[in-house]
């Protein structure tokens, strides 16, 4: 009877420790009857201690601000947006209606898809226009620009293992105390991120733009062709960034789209960490042939440079050859002339 009933856990134990207890039930069989004497712990418990419970699951590390808040999640989202998108175009949206947003997004998507087809790429679906919260975006900008998690990661050596016998009992084991300064917690919402960014507060060059209602258009790659397509929809200018014709794209000249576009104002751009204004963004968008074209130009320039160097190095040898050759022919002629004179004289 006693062997069938299980011992009610008076002590709260972690699942692994409980498992260790359950694999050797014979030691504890008489716990219910033996009231006065306590048996010695088994050998495997003397040599190694059961691992302590991890405080936080790896997918839910503790956050500096409460993680359930919308602002914490937005901060996380913006940091990831900034880290994964090298090109961001900032717009101010002045009371756009939902229908206007829809039609602007539709036109933008159409133009980008057309560029995708021309270049046989697949980035149009990843280029997104979204409204952002300026204050949280500024904080995320600081984390993305000034916080490097690898600086706060463990230096070379591994942290002490909790069940290793050589680990001292006083050793600080990561993630087993509710300590926000734990060195293993290096995500962008961590206290480490907050502290390392604090000295840079209010100093970001994009800070002046971050007020009022803002929207951001994010590009996952630096592609001048896609930038050109987006700018020709959102802020057209005649020769290079010409708006689509009414005949080819009647949806763009729709009253709703035009009303929305009038209220969308281009402010600035962030391209690979650099800040530029509308002219700068247009300069990037106007690069002929995109990044490939630019690389081709560079290769051509370097090749031309190489040929020039070869010619310059060659010219010294060649001029020497010409001089020596000239001298040789001169001497030969002289010799011939001398011979002739001798013949004439004899």
């Amino acid at each position, binding site marked *: 009877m006693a062997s069938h009933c299980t011992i009610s856990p008076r002590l709260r134990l972690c699942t692994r420790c409980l498992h260790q207890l359950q694999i050797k039930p014979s030691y504890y069989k008489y716990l219910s009857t033996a009231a006065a004497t306590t048996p010695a712990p088994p050998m495997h418990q003397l040599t190694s201690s059961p691992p302590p419970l991890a405080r936080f699951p790896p997918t839910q590390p503790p956050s500096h601000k409460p993680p359930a808040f919308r602002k914490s999640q937005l901060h996380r989202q913006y940091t990831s947006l900034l880290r994964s998108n090298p090109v961001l175009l900032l717009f*101010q949206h*002045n*009371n756009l209606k939902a229908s206007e947003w829809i039609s602007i997004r539709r036109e933008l998507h159409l133009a980008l898809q057309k560029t995708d087809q021309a270049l046989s790429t697949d980035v149009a679906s990843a280029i997104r226009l979204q409204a952002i919260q300026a204050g949280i975006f500024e904080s995320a900008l600081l984390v993305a620009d000034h916080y490097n998690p690898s600086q706060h990661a463990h230096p070379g050596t591994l942290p002490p293992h909790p069940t290793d016998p050589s680990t001292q009992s006083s050793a600080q084991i990561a993630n087993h105390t509710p300590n926000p300064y734990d060195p293993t917690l290096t995500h962008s919402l961590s206290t480490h991120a907050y502290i390392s960014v604090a000295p840079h507060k209010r100093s970001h060059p994009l800070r*002046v733009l971050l007020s009022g209602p803002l929207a951001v258009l994010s590009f996952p790659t630096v592609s001048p062709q896609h930038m050109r397509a987006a700018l020709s929809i959102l802020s057209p200018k005649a020769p290079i960034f010409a708006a689509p014709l009414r005949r080819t794209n009647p949806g763009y000249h729709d009253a709703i789209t035009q009303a929305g576009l009038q209220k969308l104002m281009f402010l600035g751009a962030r391209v690979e960490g650099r800040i530029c204004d509308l002219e700068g963004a247009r300069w990037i968008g106007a690069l002929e042939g995109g990044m490939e074209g630019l690389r081709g130009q560079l290769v051509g320039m370097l090749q031309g440079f190489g040929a020039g160097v070869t010619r310059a190095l060659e010219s010294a040898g060649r001029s020497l050859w010409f001089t020596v050759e000239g001298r040789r022919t001169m001497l030969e002629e002289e010799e011939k002339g001398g011979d002739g004179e001798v013949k004439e004289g004899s």
Partner: protein
Amino acid sequence: MITKYIAAVTTRFNPFKKPSKTCRVFLAHLPADARMKMKINTTVLGRDSQEPSFLKLTFKDGKEMQLDTEKLKINDVVVEVDRHSRTLNRVADLEPL
């Protein structure tokens, strides 16, 4: 802010300068259908431009209001605009139908 008596808005600013915030927030204060009811002329200057920002309003009674946005904050602008709009409102209320 009472925007119903504004007939035209002309503004010019460099968004990379701090005082431009007043102009930008003023534009954001205008209602969604503002562009159908009034004439809005916005010039966004380049990053290196040193021109001061300005905001010029024309009301429906013909009064022109030039606001120095280098000094005024958005709340001051709203107070200025509302002061004149309220007088126009009062006149409109007293008018016989």
